[in-house]
């Protein structure tokens, strides 16, 4: 069974540009979660999608947004990139609401803003 896959592995952008990160969940998982791990910090919750709907978002500005597609894959978009957006962005998937905590993480996208 394929795990959570994220693309690209690495992404280098210039300040002010937009970045798009992609995530494919494990087959059968309907929930997708995005987390940010900035250098030296723990994982910070960004966004949670389930069945195509945004269920919750963390304490991040509106320029962090995303969506979930009918096949449950997800995109994270970061607009007007700032230097401090440089981080490892991790995607996790799990069975839907009420199915228990079973987050499985992808290997992440390393975003570098220069």
């Amino acid at each position: 069974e394929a795990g959570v896959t994220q693309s690209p592995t690495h992404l280098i952008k210039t300040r002010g540009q937009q970045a798009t990160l992609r995530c494919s969940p494990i087959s059968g998982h309907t929930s997708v979660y995005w987390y940010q791990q900035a250098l030296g910090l723990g994982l910070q919750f960004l966004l949670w999608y389930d069945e195509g709907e945004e269920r919750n978002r963390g304490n991040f500005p509106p320029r962090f947004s995303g969506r979930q597609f009918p096949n449950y894959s997800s995109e994270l978009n970061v607009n007007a990139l700032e230097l401090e957006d440089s981080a490892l962005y991790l995607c996790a998937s799990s069975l839907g609401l009420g199915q228990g905590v079973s987050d499985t993480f992808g290997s992440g996208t390393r975003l570098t803003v220069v």
Partner: protein
Amino acid sequence: DQQVKQNSPSLSVQEGRISILNCDYTNSMFDYFLWYKKYPAEGPTFLISISSIKDKNEDGRFTVFLNKSAKHLSLHIVPSQPGDSAVYFCAASGPNAGNMLTFGGGTRLMVKP
């Protein structure tokens, strides 16, 4: 407001000895706790979890203890092996949060041969 804290950023242990990683939380609504292990450039890997109705859960060399009154949990690794060297994150989840996790800042464990 950090709801989950790992106060030790790093821990060094000799191979074969016990590693004890600690985690404190403030949100009394948390009812499920997990430990993850993370190697550089990889996503976190689930290790072990515990529900708030229990105070101990074992899986091989890994045991998690939960002290609800103290809002404290710990991960014991016995015996520690060099391959255990990684960053360990504790995470918590509560009702109505789906599977959204609140993570601690991580503890880097180094197991010396």
